[in-house]
């Protein structure tokens, strides 16, 4: 038997814990495990709070609530942890837990009476349970409480995932799962750790790497959880849930919240809930044409001086007059020359504050309302188009879809589909804002094909006076992969069509001189580019880069050649001049092109919370289309600042977009980030020294206190320094005994002196007199630097002196 055992003196035997279950119930958990449990419970509480505020009406309150509960939990945990010895066996904990659990239930009647608000039953119960979970986590120094908190946290998270589709829920759930696994592993390891004799330090900086990885992830999640921003937009639809995120996912189950069968949306116009059984309403709202004319100024300028002109061939004139007559019947003309005089815009201003309609689905998207074919030099005349009859309806998953013929299918230019739902709020007329290349249209419960009319110009209308308000109309359309068009030799635009064909008004140019001038300009801008899509892109790019979009810059009233003036002189103007010029330039090279008016659903107006995009009156827009032949018309967007809907991005494209956004952010804030990073690295590398400085400062401040406290504070400071130097004292031993370790050889006497002074100050009933100079000398001699120089490996520490 070793003598030190027989002498009754304490020795540092290896730590070991009895393998008893009943005993472990009352064990004190390590701080690390406790913190993991608190983090796990807090994440579950975040998830619940997000679920509770799922109506997105109180984001600020939600953030405030999360901040408050986090703060409370951290403070309470610190408070309990510091008084662990008093509280560990205390009987006061159980009543506290019961009170916390009952708090929500007790408050609810008062809330209902005083504030006239309340919670539903299940939310109330969950609220109470969530509070209990946090309280248990705070009291998690008992392992049994931690286990209970973990069970409640798992249940809460499952419950929330089942009922909610709040933004940020899925990433938070993933983090919760990770934290739960970490807790389980740590919990298991702690039980193992009590049984092993010695631990060895890991050489690999796992904690550092994990921290480094977790911080950007948390920052992204924080950005995602609150507010609409670039990160949100980039992450939108990254992993759509079955809860109904408004995004398409083949793996998602339908049915909850904004799915297809829940709430009639006629109470809340912003809701995209299906109103498939809602009444089709008529209203006295402004018509589509009013909006367009109001948006692009009115009234139309009257011609004072008619210049001499060359008459058109008789048969062409006849054809044109016929078309113009048909168009005029419906008032479907658009004049490029607009008066500078401002009209009465009160109605438009009103409309600015209310969306004309809402679009759910990917943006930007061009929604076609009218197609113009014939241009006489200043006026565009609509292409009435032909009504395609007897289109088949097909039932898919209980919905009836009108199959729209897909011209240009054989060109291999499509890549992926896009789904859009449109709900009209303030728009009159029976034309549905239609995305390009539609393949199907559906209104729930509408199962008769004669309700729709699909025209050869690509427009879809309803066979009634107006599009019903607040009714979602769903479109499925194909997306064009523009990059695939560049080398596509199957496209018939490669062939030069005969200009000024009588039958082909899509290549018609009114004025030969102007046409010639435009052609020369166009040829200059496409010089060296082979005929085909690349030329079209060059023209598009030419207009986008060399001309300035300015809705206030109108052509003069004397103008006769609007396009030439825009192209060669003013070089600025509204979108219709861009679109018309593009059409003319394309036509000058023999491409068949036409002008299209409609609306542009802007990505900037994407409402992250409601997951749709509002389209306002000022989003009325003009663009042009060029045909590939066989009735396939491709969107060409010559106006700068407007984009065309790309094919749906794959997961890697989304990730690369996200990375590009992050990189962009990094580049924009390079200086600040560099300073921050350098500061952070400096603080990290010198964290112990900084901590030591702060603790020393705190000790110096203690000099204002009584002599006893100064002496005791010195011992506290030295213990902190030992911890920083990796020589932390074990809880079950005293500083004097700890200083007898072999590693403390050079400073043992001073450590013992510190312990002696502190013991005297702490345990002597009377006040003691302390020599401040000696305290200062001891503090300097036992500095962090000095202690750091001591060999701090575990083997050395465990040796007895």
């Amino acid at each position, binding site marked *: *038997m070793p*003598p030190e*055992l*027989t*002498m*009754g*003196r*304490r*020795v540092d*035997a290896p*730590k*070991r*814990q*009895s393998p*008893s279950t*009943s*005993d472990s119930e*009352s064990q*004190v958990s390590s701080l690390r495990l406790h913190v993991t449990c608190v983090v796990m419970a807090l994440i579950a509480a975040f998830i619940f709070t997000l679920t509770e505020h799922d109506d997105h009406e109180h984001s600020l309150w939600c953030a405030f609530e999360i901040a408050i509960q986090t703060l409370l939990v951290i403070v309470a945990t610190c408070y309990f942890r510091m008084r662990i*010895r008093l509280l560990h*066996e205390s009987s006061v904990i159980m009543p506290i837990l019961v009170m916390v659990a009952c708090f929500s239930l007790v408050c609810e009647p008062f809330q209902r009476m005083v504030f006239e608000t309340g919670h539903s039953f299940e939310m109330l119960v969950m609220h109470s349970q969530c509070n209990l979970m946090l309280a248990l986590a705070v009291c998690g120094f008992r392992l049994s409480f931690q286990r209970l908190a973990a069970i409640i946290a798992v249940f809460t998270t499952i419950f929330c995932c089942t009922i909610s589709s709040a933004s940020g829920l899925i990433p938070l759930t993933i983090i919760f799962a990770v934290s739960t696994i970490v807790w389980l592993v740590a919990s298991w390891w702690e039980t193992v750790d009590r049984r092993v004799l010695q631990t060895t330090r890991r050489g690999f900086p796992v904690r550092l790497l994990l921290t480094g990885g977790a911080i950007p992830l948390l920052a992204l999640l924080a950005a995602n959880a609150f507010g609409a921003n670039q990160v949100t937009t980039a992450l939108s639809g990254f992993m759509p849930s079955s809860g109904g995120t408004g995004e398409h996912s083949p793996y998602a189950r339908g049915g909850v919240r904004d799915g297809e069968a829940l709430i009639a949306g006629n109470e809340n116009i912003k809701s995209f809930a299906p109103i498939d059984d809602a009444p089709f309403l008529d209203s006295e709202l402004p018509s589509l044409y009013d909006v367009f004319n109001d948006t692009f100024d009115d009234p139309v300028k009257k011609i004072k001086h008619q210049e001499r002109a060359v008459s058109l061939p008789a048969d062409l004139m006849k054809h044109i007059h016929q078309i113009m007559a048909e168009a005029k019947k419906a008032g479907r003309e658009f004049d490029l020359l607009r008066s500078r005089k401002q009209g009465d815009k009160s109605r438009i201003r009103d409309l600015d504050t209310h969306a004309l309609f809402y679009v759910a689905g990917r943006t930007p998207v061009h929604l076609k309302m009218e197609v113009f074919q014939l241009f006489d030099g200043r006026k565009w005349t609509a292409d009435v188009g032909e009504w395609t009859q007897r289109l088949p309806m097909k039932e898919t998953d209980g919905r009836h879809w009108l199959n729209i013929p897909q011209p240009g299918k054989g060109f291999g230019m499509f890549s992926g589909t896009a789904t859009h739902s449109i709900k009209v709020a303030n728009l009159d007329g029976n034309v549905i804002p239609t995305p390009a290349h539609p393949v199907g249209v559906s209104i729930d419960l509408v199962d008769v094909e004669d309700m729709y009319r699909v025209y050869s110009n690509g427009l879809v209308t309803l066979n009634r006076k107006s599009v019903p308000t607040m009714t979602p109309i769903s479109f499925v359309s194909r997306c064009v992969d523009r990059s695939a068009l560049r080398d596509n030799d199957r496209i018939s635009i490669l062939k030069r069509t005969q200009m000024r064909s009588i039958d082909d008004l899509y290549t018609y140019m009114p004025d030969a001189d102007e046409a010639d001038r435009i052609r020369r300009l166009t040829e200059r801008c496409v010089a060296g580019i082979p005929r085909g899509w690349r030329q079209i892109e060059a023209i598009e790019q030419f207009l986008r880069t060399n001309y300035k979009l300015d809705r206030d810059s109108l052509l003069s009233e004397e103008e006769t050649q609007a396009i030439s003036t825009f192209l060669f002189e003013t070089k600025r103007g509204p979108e219709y001049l861009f679109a018309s010029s593009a059409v003319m330039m394309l036509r000058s090279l023999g491409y068949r092109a036409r002008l299209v008016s409609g609306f542009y659903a802007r990505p900037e107006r994407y409402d992250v919370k409601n997951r749709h995009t509002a389209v306002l009156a000022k989003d009325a827009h003009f663009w042009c289309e060029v045909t590939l032949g066989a009735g396939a018309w491709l969107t060409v967007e010559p106006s700068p600042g407007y984009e065309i809907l790309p094919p749906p991005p794959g997961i890697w494209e989304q990730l690369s977009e996200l990375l590009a956004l992050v990189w962009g952010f990094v580049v924009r804030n390079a200086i600040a980030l560099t300073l921050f990073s350098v500061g952070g690295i400096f603080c990290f590398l010198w964290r112990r020294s900084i901590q030591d400085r702060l603790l020393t400062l705190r000790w110096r401040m203690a000099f204002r206190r009584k002599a*006893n406290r100064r002496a*005791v*504070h010195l*011992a*506290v400071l030295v*213990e902190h320094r030992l911890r920083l130097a990796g020589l932390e004292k*074990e*809880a*079950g*031993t*005293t*500083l*004097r*005994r700890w200083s007898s370790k072999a590693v403390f050889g050079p400073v043992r006497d001073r450590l013992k002196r510190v*312990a*002696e002074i*502190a*013991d*005297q100050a*702490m*345990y*002597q*009933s009377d006040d*003691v007199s302390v020599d401040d100079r000696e305290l200062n000398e001891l503090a300097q001699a036992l500095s962090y630097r000095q202690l750091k120089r001591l060999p701090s490996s575990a083997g050395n520490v465990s040796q007895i002196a």
Partner: protein
Amino acid sequence: MSTLVTESGTAEQHLAAADSIRNRLNAALKGKQDVVEMVLVCLLSRGHLLLEDKPGLGKTTLAKALASAIGGDFARAQCTPDLLPSDITGFNIFNQKTHEFEFRSGPVFADVLLADEINRATPRTQSALLEAMAERQVTVDTQRFDLSRQFFVIATQNPVDQHGTYPLPEAQLDRFAMKLSVGYPAPDDEIRMLQEAVGTIEDDTSRDSPALQEGQLQEMQEAVSRVSVAETVQDYLVRIATETRKHISINLGLSPRGLLTLQRAAQAQAFLGRREFVTPDDVLDVVFPVLSVRLGLEIEEANRVVQEVLDAVPVPDYSEKKK
């Protein structure tokens, strides 16, 4: 180092006397300073001592040296299975001359009683010591007799030869303040012991004059009882006691009497350390022998279990506010 402030003038005398006892015990038992220190603690805390070790390690030598040092009457009872309780306490005998019963006191009436190989006595005889050790009195034939104020029992037992022994019951063990194991001396100490034995016939220390004056031991014990114990230290003591009651390997945790003994032993340790207040270090110094006598375990096992108990109970933190 703070000085011990007891009744003026006597403190230094007491400590000098303690030093004297210490020196004499160290002279008798070579290289066992730690054991000697605990014996002193046990003496000053007015507790009884149980020495458990193999034969020939100096248990009896130590007991005799202690009795000689404190200067009281020394009595030795060699415990055997046929030892009767009256052999310990004394008995009434009929005096045929006076025709009255006379009380013949037993060895328990000495100041220092060495109960050698106590576990060889029958439980009946062992129980006879209960009252004497706890209350410092004996009752014989309904007559109560007070024992010496400095009554001090040193019992020894042999852990190896278990044949024909009667393990001490828990109640009896609880009457002891400490259990110590002397252990084999270090080789150097054994060489010194051999050298001193050359030319010496016997090592009889009983003839030496006592190190303590009349009544000085009581004064020292009273001074020890006055050493202050802060509330944080008492809280620490209670937490240790609570932990022993929960520990899986301990059938019977520390009793309140044991807790009082532990505090008094810590006070004695502080006294010997020339302090008038108890620190957690004092508690840790004495906790092993005080607990090991009560745990009903072999001494190696007891040390391991006590270590586990101490590991589970954090010492008072300096950052805690003074109560």
